[in-house]
């Protein structure tokens, strides 16, 4: 736990910097809000039809889901990488275990490219 004490100091300094930047912006910047300045930024034909947050392709959702699943799988590589060097003395047990794990993972990747749901090619 002692190792993270300086991180606490760094946290405080980062907070100080953020608050400092925030107050500098508040104090120094001149302020005369004209209605044209406060409107939404439009370039080209101004067409503020309804809420700007129109839904669109689900490929963004698919990218986020695949990132989540592969991030979880990548997180399991870290403990394996940590103990792999010592485990080599007892033979290739860990190597085979990881090859099976990675085989199924690569199967998932092949499935993604074959179904081409991310519209990659």
């Amino acid at each position, binding site marked *: 736990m002692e*190792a993270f004490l300086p991180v606490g100091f760094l946290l405080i300094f980062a907070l100080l910097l953020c608050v400092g930047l925030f107050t500098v912006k508040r104090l120094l910047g001149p302020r005369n809000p004209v209605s044209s300045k406060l409107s939404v930024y439009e370039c080209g034909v101004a067409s503020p039809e309804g809420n700007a947050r129109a839904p669109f392709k689900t490929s963004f959702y698919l990218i986020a889901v695949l990132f989540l699943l592969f991030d979880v799988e990548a997180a399991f590589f870290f403990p394996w990488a940590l103990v792999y060097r010592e485990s080599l003395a007892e033979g290739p047990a860990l190597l085979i275990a990881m090859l099976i794990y990675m085989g199924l993972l690569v199967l998932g*990747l092949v499935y993604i490219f074959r179904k081409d749901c991310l519209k990659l090619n």
Partner: protein
Amino acid sequence: MEWTDLIITAVKTAVIYLGMVQVVPIMLIVERRGAALMQDRPGPNRVGPFGLFQPIADVIKMMMKEVTVPRQVNKALFLLGPFLVLFPASLVIAALPFGDYFTLLGRDYLLQVANIDVGILYVLAIGSLGIYGILFGGWASNNKFSLIGAMRSSSQIISYEIPLGLAACSAVLWYGSFSLREMVYTQEGTFLGILPNWGFFYQPIGFLLFFIAAFAETNRLPFDLPETEAELVAGFHTEYGPMDFGTFFMAEYMNMATMSGLMVAMYFGGWHLPWVSDVTLLQWLGSRNLLAALQVVTVIVKISVFMLMFVWVRWTLPRFRFDQLMRLAWRNLIPIGLINLVITALIMYFRSAQ
């Protein structure tokens, strides 16, 4: 931990953090002069001798300009957006090793903010929080351009976090420990007589992956698509005022410095000079603190080489299209990362089998 320890660690953290914050103005002038050099034009040289006061002028201009918070904006998240990018970017510095240790008042202090034993995991975990600033900033400014820019930028950062994780994982596999400090310790001495014993020569593919993913993580060219001036008007920070834009830039440069520090620590031997071992250096220089100073200088020189590379690549390579970007990440980098992991594991197995 008596009081002297606390004060010295606090001062050390403050010095390291200010050193990192100083990267921003230096990079402002280096980037613009570097770009000018490559485009055969003089670049900013009006303000002060050789334009060295240009960053000060930029910062003051950003502060003095008017702050407009548009009406239809979710105020809380809009104002918080840029700081959500700056905050994780400044927390990641804690794991970077700048040198071995220096002795003060008879006690040894590490030239590193905190000796975190889960170094790489800490950097990946805190580094992945930068997405929220972009997501909340883009969403809160309630503007078609900034929303699409935020979605594209965060899906790009997301897609390139997996190859980053895989490259870091193969480094951990080779060094056998998470802590960046141990990684730098194992990189001392020479390998095959002439080459310095650096991680780059054991993990060339891993380094390449990390290098490419580092560009994508910091939204630098050629992965600059989210802020393309042509299509999306400025991506997720369209509605933001000058100082927020400055905060986003500061976070980007700090991310660049941290990524370069990581690449130096993992692949280019941290604070080791190529062919000279620390012990001989100690005899030449005599005092421990002088050696510590030299180590910090070597790390800073190596980091600045990487920063210059960031600038150099920015002004030479064209920008990727969004689907090319995604295809590179999902079709090419992730399989290469997995293959690199398998090859490293096999090599380690056969070497240990003899």
